[in-house]
């Protein structure tokens, strides 16, 4: 193992001016939490960057973990050397020798941040480059389009050498932009919406509506798995609210307004979520809606549904195509879980022709005529169960049977 540190570069939070300090602190806390499984590492920071000292541990799993955290722009495993010509040359040599695929072309890019260093950047490019070229007769310099760019960052405390700039997830660190509720159905879209919301620094609490026996236990487990996956990205546990929705759903289904049932259900869900948001100090509701995707996601539908709440409705996927959403779902590892074939409660009682253009007055009249909708919504909020989920929480599969059997 030749790398001894990983340098982390911050993302959007650099724009934060006077709040910057606070953001950096959040970021560092998040990184420390995420690297708890690697007790051997240590941390230190310099202006605008954070360094993870590997202390002999392999860098790959740590890089893999960090690149999924929000608030980081990029990261590089680095070799550190004394800021002195011969040490830098030796480190450059061991870095070039360690490359799995020996390149045909390369270039050296020296950045002399420490002006006390005796050789200027241009001069150093040659001093390091020529040293490498002597050892690799088949290698040549290509300044425009090199296969490998050997970067040398000369700081006063040390010089860092690296070839890789690994893009990280970007965005803001977890929780730096307040808290919202996420409607999590178990489908493809809502986990992606959750990931995008987390990426913008929102803290999330997930809300899932279950409708046993119309939905199965597996549908709930699917949502638990998805929440755990999201909590891997947040680097902090996520609270999941499981709302019993059977009574409301069966009661709405009996109103004799088949084509409006989805509208009525969605409105009830938003009311319940608003109630949960108030109880839990959340200031918005995130949904996985995408314009025109289904009947309840047309503009007229969203107009009628959205009027039930005063909280801002955040819809990260609103202008995205399904294919783009699926691509993200695959990238963040939620797709395989999302397509497991268990009904969620929106796909049940699906009428033959759900209204794409519901009439607000009719909807309000049905709700007003319902004998006890408000009480049912309050009961659902009161009977909602909570679970705190983190990525390493044992799944029902991991708990299956008896431990002595395995």
């Amino acid at each position: 193992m030749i790398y001894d540190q990983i340098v982390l570069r911050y993302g959007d939070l650099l724009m934060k001016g006077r709040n910057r300090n606070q953001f950096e602190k959040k970021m560092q806390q998040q990184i420390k939490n995420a690297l708890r499984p690697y007790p051997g590492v240590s941390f230190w920071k310099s202006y605008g960057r954070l360094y993870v000292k590997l202390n002999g541990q392999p860098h790959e799993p740590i890089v893999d973990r960090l690149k999924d955290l929000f608030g980081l722009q990029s990261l590089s495993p680095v070799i550190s050397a004394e800021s002195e010509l011969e040490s830098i040359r030796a480190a450059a040599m061991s870095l070039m020798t360690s490359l799995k695929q020996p390149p045909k072309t390369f270039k050296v890019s020296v950045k002399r941040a420490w002006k006390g260093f005796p050789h200027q950047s241009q001069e150093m490019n040659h001093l390091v480059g020529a040293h490498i070229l002597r050892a690799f007769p088949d290698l040549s310099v290509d300044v425009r389009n090199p296969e490998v760019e050997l970067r040398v960052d000369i700081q006063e405390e040390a010089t860092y050498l690296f070839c890789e700039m690994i893009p990280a997830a970007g965005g803001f660190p977890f929780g730096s932009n307040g808290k919202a509720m996420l409607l999590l159905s178990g489908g493809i879209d809502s986990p992606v919406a959750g990931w995008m919301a987390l990426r913008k620094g929102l803290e999330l609490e997930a809300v899932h509506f279950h409708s046993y026996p119309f939905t199965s236990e597996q549908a709930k487990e699917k949502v638990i798995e998805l929440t755990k996956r999201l909590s891997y990205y947040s680097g902090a546990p996520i609270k999941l609210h499981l709302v019993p929705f059977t009574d409301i759903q069966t009661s709405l289904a009996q109103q004799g307004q088949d084509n409006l049932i989805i509208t009525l259900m969605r409105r009830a869900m938003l009311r319940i979520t608003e109630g949960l948001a108030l109880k839990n100090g959340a200031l918005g509701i995130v949904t996985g809606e995408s314009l025109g995707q289904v009947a309840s996601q047309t503009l007229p539908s969203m107009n009628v549904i959205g009027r039930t709440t005063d909280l801002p409705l955040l819809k990260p996927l609103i202008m995205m195509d399904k294919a783009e959403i699926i691509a993200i779902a695959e990238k963040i590892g939620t797709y395989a879980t999302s397509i497991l074939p268990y009904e969620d409660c929106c796909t049940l009682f699906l009428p033959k022709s759900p209204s794409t253009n519901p009439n607000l007055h009719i909807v309000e009249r049905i709700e007003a005529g319902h004998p006890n909708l408000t009480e049912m919504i309050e009961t659902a909020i009161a009977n909602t169960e909570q679970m705190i989920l983190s990525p390493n929480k044992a799944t029902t599969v991991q708990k299956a049977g008896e431990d002595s059997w395995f």
Partner: protein
Amino acid sequence: MIYFDHCASTPPYEEVISTLAEVMRKHYANPSSLHGEGAEAAKLIERSRALIASQLGTGSGRWLFTSGGTEANNLALKGAARQYRGRGDHIIASSIEHASVHDALKQLEKEGFRVTYLPVNAAGHVAVDDVKAALTKDTILVTVMHVNNEIGTIQPIQEIGGLLRSYPQTLFHVDAVQSIGKVPIYPERWGIDLVSGSAHKLRGPKGLGWLYVRDGVQLVPLASGGSQEGGFRAGTENVPAIVAGAKALRMSMERMEERGRNMRRLGEKLRAFIRTRPELRLNGGEPLAPHIVHFSYPGMKPEVIVHALEQHGIMASTKSACSSKDNKPSRVLLALGADPAHASGGIRVSFGDEHDESHIDRLINALTSVIEKLKPLERSSKF
């Protein structure tokens, strides 16, 4: 009785037997059923699968459950060949594969596939350069066993896997039935696409095999029916065996190093004796798996030796159990360049956890007296 036939099958761990019985009693529901009992049985399968993946260090990909090593090998070879026929029709195999690989390939040849059988050297090893030389643009599959079931030689799997990294159109299957739990194998790190294993070779129940399928690899199923095992294998899963087999695998993996050291010591002792007997000849050269010693008595039918040893209370084997009932010379020994007399005379001794040096001493004594008795009956090796 001393049981020296661990390559053929092994005594199950006590804990494996109780797990098998308990799961069989409690979880009889069909894992495909929608109700809670079915779901629970399905979870037991997934927990077993996860345990196997963690024991063999596979992060992605899928471990399938089959009825045994033979089915795992058949599914891997026929499934892959038929799936990827559009890419090409050429398969490469070693000439010392187990019958379940060798005969599956013979069947594929009848379907129009071309198979190159790679030679082995006198020590019983495939050369990586031979694999490289045999590769063509039509090669869709390379299959090389990890530990040979007759003579115990370890094939250069890691090196072949490394070579095949540059041939993304060519899948790599490894029959690891004799190696899992005995010598280290790293499917992912070594670039293997398909790995077969069998539970009863490592003190698990019979009727359970494993097939690792790398992420992205598709196989045409052997049998039609339900969509169990991700559509790779139809048929209700053998839940008790799956759970008990995963346990056996874990127990075997955990003690692999220690067991390897012990067996190597026993093997060396036995080999040292065999080298002192002019009648006997050791087969196979290093690297060898720790649990197998294979030798020949040219000019003497191996069945006679096996039966004579049995009179001393010792169970050993002629070649592999799967082909021990035919009278032909061993295909494996012939591939090593042995003449037919030598190739007909193979005796395999394979040890397990229960053996120590006293058992080897008893075997040595028995062999000595068997040779004394049989020597006057030796036939000329030219027949």
